[in-house]
């Protein structure tokens, strides 16, 4: 009996030692985090530093950071998903999570939203990531479009910053003289943002409530005709159709234009001209509507993740600690977390504070008139038919014909 007890004691001790040794030697869980490049190199450095901070405070979970460039981003993700090597968690474009959720590749994060609290997010941002009754991602950053103007050029022409469409048209015309123009834009996707911006500013959109294409609806056509009228007035730099967004900024910087549609970081991108740059208030449309377009960028967890619990813990930690991405990393856009928007980093910069105060409350995603986001939005956003539409308008071609073609194309896209 004594021998049996001794054996039992030795056995228990050996088991305990084995378990403790195993625990001590257990490799930490590794999470692959793919982060789009939301700024310049400072952003990547700040994001890496934030990941390091997480890794130091979580010995059992280690996050491996990978910065993903925007060129070919879609191919990067779909190839990874198709080959079974998707990351555990990633940031992504405005409609990425909902589309990948539609493919059955995204894990809903309702519990993370509940834990953080819906009130923590800026108005409308959570709705932008809700589909099929689930939050398919956390909103983390709002990209938004606002009209910037050159204070010096307007002052020299004796023009007050316009507040309505009509005032804007008149000001742009007065500022145009054949070498300087009221407006400069581009023919790339940045230039195509003129379309949803003015549609939303007129209480319209590209879809009706049943998610049918509505490019040629009455209000949408009013918006397109308005953009066309700027071209007809000679108020738009004729190079716009062939310009990239960088070219358009260059033209704005070279005093060739007084108005430009851009994201919140424009003054930081135009050198010394930034000091002469300010934001117009949202322009009131002919029916009294106010609005602009926004994209609520996502951070999402993939179903292929073998560590969904740890990924959700990291997701929450990242959302709670990401202010440094702006304060140290100069990230683009406005944070989706409402409390961060009050930080001096944002409120201390006049143009950003103006955008948060005036534009953010009236901003809507492109899918807003369809009653919220839906999976086809990612393809609609990436398709390029809006680029074709705006390039035709910048060239002075018939707005009605261009809109009809865009309508037919969108119908075909939605049908597929």
């Amino acid at each position, binding site marked *: 009996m004594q021998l049996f007890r001794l054996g039992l004691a030795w056995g228990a001790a050996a088991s305990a030692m084995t378990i403790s040794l195993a625990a001590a030697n257990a490799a930490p869980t590794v999470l692959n985090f793919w982060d789009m490049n939301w700024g310049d190199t400072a952003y990547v450095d700040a994001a890496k530093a934030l990941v390091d901070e997480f890794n130091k405070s979580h010995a059992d979970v280690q996050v491996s950071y990978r910065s993903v460039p925007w060129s070919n981003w879609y*191919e990067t993700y779909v190839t990874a998903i198709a080959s079974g090597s998707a990351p555990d968690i990633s940031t992504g474009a405005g409609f990425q999570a909902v589309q990948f959720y539609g493919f059955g590749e995204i894990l809903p994060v309702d519990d993370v939203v509940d834990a953080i609290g819906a009130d923590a997010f800026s108005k409308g941002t959570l709705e932008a990531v809700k589909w099929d009754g689930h939050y398919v991602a956390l909103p983390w950053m709002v990209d938004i479009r606002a009209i910037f103007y050159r204070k010096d050029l307007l002052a020299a022409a004796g023009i007050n910053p316009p507040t309505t469409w009509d005032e804007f048209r008149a000001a742009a015309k007065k500022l145009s003289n054949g070498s300087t123009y009221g407006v400069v834009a581009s023919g790339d996707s940045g230039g195509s943002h003129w379309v949803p911006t003015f549609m939303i500013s007129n209480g319209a959109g590209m879809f009706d409530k049943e998610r049918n294409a509505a490019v040629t609806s009455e209000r949408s056509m009013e918006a397109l005709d308005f953009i066309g009228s700027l071209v007809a007035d000679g108020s738009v730099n004729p190079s716009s159709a062939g310009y990239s967004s960088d070219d358009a900024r260059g033209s704005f910087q070279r005093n060739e234009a007084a108005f430009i549609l851009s994201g919140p970081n424009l003054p930081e991108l135009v050198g010394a001209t930034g000091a002469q740059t300010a934001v117009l208030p949202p322009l009131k449309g002919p029916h009294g509507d106010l609005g602009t377009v926004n994209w609520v960028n996502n951070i999402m967890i993939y179903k292929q993740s073998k560590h969904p619990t740890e990924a959700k813990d990291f997701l929450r930690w990242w959302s709670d600690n990401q202010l440094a991405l702006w304060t140290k990393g100069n990230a683009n856009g406005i944070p989706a977390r409402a409390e961060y928007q009050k930080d001096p980093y944002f409120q201390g910069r006049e143009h950003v504070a103006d955008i948060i105060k005036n534009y953010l409350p009236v901003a809507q995603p492109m899918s807003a008139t369809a009653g919220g986001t839906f999976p086809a939005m990612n393809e609609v956003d990436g398709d390029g038919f809006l680029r074709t539409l705006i390039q035709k308008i910048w060239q002075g071609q018939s707005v009605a014909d261009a809109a009809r073609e865009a309508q037919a194309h969108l119908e075909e896209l939605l049908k597929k």
Partner: protein
Amino acid sequence: MSSRQQTAVTGIAWRERARQFTRPEIVTPTVLLIPSLCLIAFLILYPIVQGFWYSLTDGSLLRPGRFVALGNYVELMTNPSFWHSVRFSIVFAVCNIVGCYLLGLGLALLMQMDMPFRGLFRVLLLLPWIVPSVVAIVSWRWMVADQSALFNQIIKAFGGSPIYFLSDSTWAVVVVIGIKIWRSFPFMMLSLLAALQTIDRSLYEAAEIDGANRWQSFWHITLPDIRNISVILCLLMTIWSVNDFDTPWLLAQGGPANATENLVVLAYRYTFARNDVGTGAAVSFITLFILMALFTFVLRLQREDRNA
């Protein structure tokens, strides 16, 4: 001959044929070729078959999709964007071939003449071909982008009005074709120069003695002698023009308003921007069929010409 004798003769014939196939000079090279054939099948045949299969489905980059038979091809036949791309691809290829050939031949004839710094000129004229396409096209873009760009500065210096090369659909087509010619003519020049140098000089001397002028010598001696290489060069140039993605994409991303969207750019857009792999693959295969048909036609023409 009885049926038994007939069977015996047939058997002997078969054995003889089989013996021919099992001879070492047949077997050894065949065995040695097998690894290469497997590699070719894996690297070329498999992607082609797989790509063709994709063109028969309605899949996306993430989902394999359903079999739709020739649905994607039929749909493309009624798609105005597709026909626009076909038209632009033809215009682009024809203009490039004609432009390249005339410029290449002219310069090759010039480079053949005795002139000072001939070697230096030859090297300089090869530069557009040597410079990486991204560097060349982006540099051109800067030179024609807007009213402040170099070309417009020159036009303004001569009192002209600026031309919006990349913002006007017609001008964008002209610029894309012009830059393609600029990038391609050195290859044409180099190949034609090599062909010109193989022509027997005594033919020209004889023609001169017979009283032929320079034009007659060119028409009756030079052109017939470089005809075969010219056909092959034009065929190659057609393939490279139809398959050119760099020039229209880097210069104008197929714009403005799709004016410079060729079949390759259209296939790229369908596959990666619209996530419609089936239609993208169908566009690619139509391009391949067109090129193969052209290739076969030209080769047959050449063969008939040789036999005549």
